[in-house]
């Protein structure tokens, strides 16, 4: 139980709840709150000392944010 583990769990749970129930209920707020839980998962992986997993997760997380952004742009565009 090192500090990274506890901090990661707190961030993961808080970010997930905040992404499920965002206060102004927009897609953008859900996406930003999802970033909190992404950082919590990164700290959780850090507590197991997995360097390769951290690198891969960082890259894939940025890629998935880009895909979400494209989806939101297509959804909110005036048809």
């Amino acid at each position, binding site marked *: 139980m090192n*500090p990274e583990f506890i901090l990661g769990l707190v961030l993961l749970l808080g970010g997930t709840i905040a992404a499920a129930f965002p206060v102004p209920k927009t897609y*953008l707020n859900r996406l930003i*709150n999802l970033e909190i839980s992404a950082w919590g998962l990164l700290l959780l992986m850090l507590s197991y000392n997995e360097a390769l997993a*951290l690198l891969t997760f*960082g*890259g894939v997380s940025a890629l998935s944010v880009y895909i979400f952004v494209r989806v*939101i742009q297509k959804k909110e565009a005036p048809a």
Partner: protein
Amino acid sequence: MQEGWIAVNNIALMAFGALAIIGALLTIVERDPFRKLISLGILVGGSVPFIVDRGLLDVAIAVALIAPLSTIFILMVCGRGDQ
């Protein structure tokens, strides 16, 4: 002296953990997207020293360069703020 060094390191890491908690709470509480992204910057600043303290410096470099990239991606959805 060695114990003193470890103790100061631990106190500094507690401060950075507090930084991450402040950033996460602020990101959840704020309502404007720009203010949420600035608070996310506080969260990143609190998390990177934990990666450095483990000795994973290459991971820290990659993460510190990828985090602003995803912020810029999110900014593509935000319109301009109220002047």
